[in-house]
């Protein structure tokens, strides 16, 4: 009844709709979010139903979008901001890092910053420059921000609900190449905590940890590995800040091996933090060093080579083999 089969984009759309319906303080704002419904149609139909005062086409200026969202939050609104593509968040970076992230602490808790920043991110869609990046580490390093990414329609729906309900700023990374992947969404469910990881496949030989678009790749890798007799556990981290280290630790204590997979460059990426912290927590459990599979230290390449840049099944399995070889 309340269970529908939806693609991720539509699940987010439904979640925004629900929030707009439930709380008159919720606003949706960004470039082209109105009539067009966003370049990915994630906000499709919302302006029509909630009006231009609640679903707001903004001037083309990301710092202005986030800066005014902060002001709106100070006035009691709960803006959900869309950044059109990952590569276009940087003009807003100053407002996000120096203002949005720090305002609550600066005010000694007297003001809250319930702002969600939605960013379609990641590659694999054959796009031009700036449309395929994974800048999550650049936000996760900054205290005061929470950083999450769903990998399924159900999480897309519920994590968006929770992000909007959160009194903290949440950077909500949407795996754009999975926008059209379908899955069941139970809009009556009782969701788990926003920042908890989830074991999406159980296994005993090695743990794969990923989030967003890479969860699917890891599940495929685990399926392929099974054919070769290897039992891989797959953890969907869901949150890059904070990270549910307890869940990863518990898994690694059983498997003894961890491979972290993300699209972002490995160098200074989230895999580094996970490797460092899990190695500290599981020093005597690890049979192999934590290995990382991710992007290279190079600008995201042109579309016709992106498949070589992005972690895929083979590169994950290669890392699995290297880990198991220890």
């Amino acid at each position: 009844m309340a269970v529908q089969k939806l693609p991720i984009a539509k699940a987010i759309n439904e979640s925004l709709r629900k929030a707009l319906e439930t709380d008159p303080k919720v606003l949706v704002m960004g470039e082209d979010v109105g009539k067009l419904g966003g370049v990915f149609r994630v906000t499709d139909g919302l302006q029509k139903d909630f009006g231009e005062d609640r679903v707001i086409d903004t001037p083309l200026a990301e710092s202005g979008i986030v800066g005014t969202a902060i002001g709106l939050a100070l006035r009691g609104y709960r803006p959900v901001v869309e950044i059109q593509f990952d590569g276009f968040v940087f003009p807003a970076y100053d407002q996000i890092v120096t203002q949005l992230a720090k305002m609550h602490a600066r005010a000694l808790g007297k003001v809250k910053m319930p702002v969600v920043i939605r960013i379609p991110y990641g590659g694999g869609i054959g796009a031009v420059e700036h449309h395929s990046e994974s800048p999550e580490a650049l936000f996760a390093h900054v205290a005061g921000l929470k950083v999450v990414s769903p990998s399924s329609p159900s999480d897309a729906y519920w994590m968006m609900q929770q992000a909007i309900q959160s009194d903290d700023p949440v950077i909500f990374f949407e795996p754009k190449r999975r926008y059209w992947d379908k899955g069941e969404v139970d809009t009556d469910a009782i969701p788990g905590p926003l920042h908890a990881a989830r074991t999406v496949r159980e296994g005993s030989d090695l743990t794969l940890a990923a989030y967003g678009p890479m969860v699917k790749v890891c599940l495929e890798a685990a399926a392929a590995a099974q054919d070769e007799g290897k039992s891989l556990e797959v953890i969907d981290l869901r949150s890059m800040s904070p990270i549910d280290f307890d869940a990863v630790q518990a898994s690694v204590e059983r498997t003894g091996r961890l491979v972290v997979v993300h699209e972002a460059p490995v160098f200074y990426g989230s895999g580094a933090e996970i490797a460092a912290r899990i190695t500290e927590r599981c020093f005597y459990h690890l049979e192999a060093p934590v290995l990382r599979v991710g992007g290279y230290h190079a600008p995201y390449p042109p579309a016709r080579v992106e498949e070589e840049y992005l972690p895929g099944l083979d590169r994950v399995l290669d890392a699995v083999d290297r880990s198991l070889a220890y």
Partner: protein
Amino acid sequence: MTVESTAARKPRSSNSSSGAGTKRATAKKAPEKKTPAKKAAAKSAAAKSAAREAAPHDAPQHDPELVQLLTPEGKRVEHPEFGIDLTPDELRGLYRDMVLTRRFDAEATSLQRQGELGLWASLLGQEAAQIGSGRALRDDDYVFPTYREHGVAWCRGVPPENLLGMFRGVNNGGWDPNSNNFHLYTIVIGSQTLHATGYAMGVAKDGADSAVIAYFGDGASSQGDVAESFTFSAVYNAPVVFFCQNNQWAISEPTEKQTRVPLYQRARGYGFPGIRVDGNDVLACLAVTKYALERARSGEGPTLVEAFTYRMGAHTTSDDPTKYRRDEEREAWEAKDPIQRLRTYLESEKIADADFFAALDEEQEALGKRVREAVRSMPDPDPMSMFENVYADGSALVDEERAQFAAYQASFADSPVAGEGK
């Protein structure tokens, strides 16, 4: 829909639940609200008289003058301040430029449909703005484009097929900027206006009399970077022309979402002139840009040119304009087509004959063919190229990752499956 239509201005009262206008103005010009709002304003002595510095928005709205030398009907008109005197050859040249640019653009659009390009940003409708301004440039001038300046690239002599590399996905910029003094396409909106300003500061430092031109759109006018480029260029009196193609739309947003007064007026508050030109009139664009470039050369600093034009097509091949704009708007602008009006003029003045047009048709076909072939034979990049040019001086990190990647690739040498799953 023109930029002059005012943004909605509802007077607010404390009991009303409706907020100040975020409503997009309708196509028709909203009548100026003359009655003072209920609340106190009118009561205060100060408010009784309009502020001297009141915005044009508040002042009686006389239509901002559009510099025009060739009417939509193809009639040559004079403008009191901007004149131009071109030879028949030059006039035919401008026509040829526009026609070939449009043909190239159409070819690219269809190559995208055929899957040869991942995306295309068409300049359809903006040929006059681009060819007029592009032909105003000297070789030693320098151009900073957005991603849509295919006509300007044409004027600079950039081989058209080179523009397609990034849209095909084989590179992120397929030419040497210094070969034609035409910088790479810049996708992050507005950034290039600062590069242009810095470059112009360098030109001035060198004591050269070259000029720099920065292209940007109506949407881009909202970016802080564009404002900062106005500030820097004014303060350093940099020889730069800001050429804004106001094509009425930033993807789905009409210009009212970026400004409530005509964009050319923006410049004045930074201390340099702004001029609005009919962006579908190649002669006017040429004349006004030449004027602005000469100002730059002679040490008078920056100028903003707003070319009032129209994006006839979709934003890009990924866009669906039926979601947000009416056909009638496009149709109204078709009557102002930049190519047709010059053709009418050339024909009525007998500057070009049937042979000229026939030869140009052939040239079009040849260009189309050349572009098609060039695109289809563009090889995919070598995966190893990902690691090239990350740094000019190299990097141990890149070397390490390159070596790992090479070893990984080599590990598939004997395996039948060499690709990556998805």
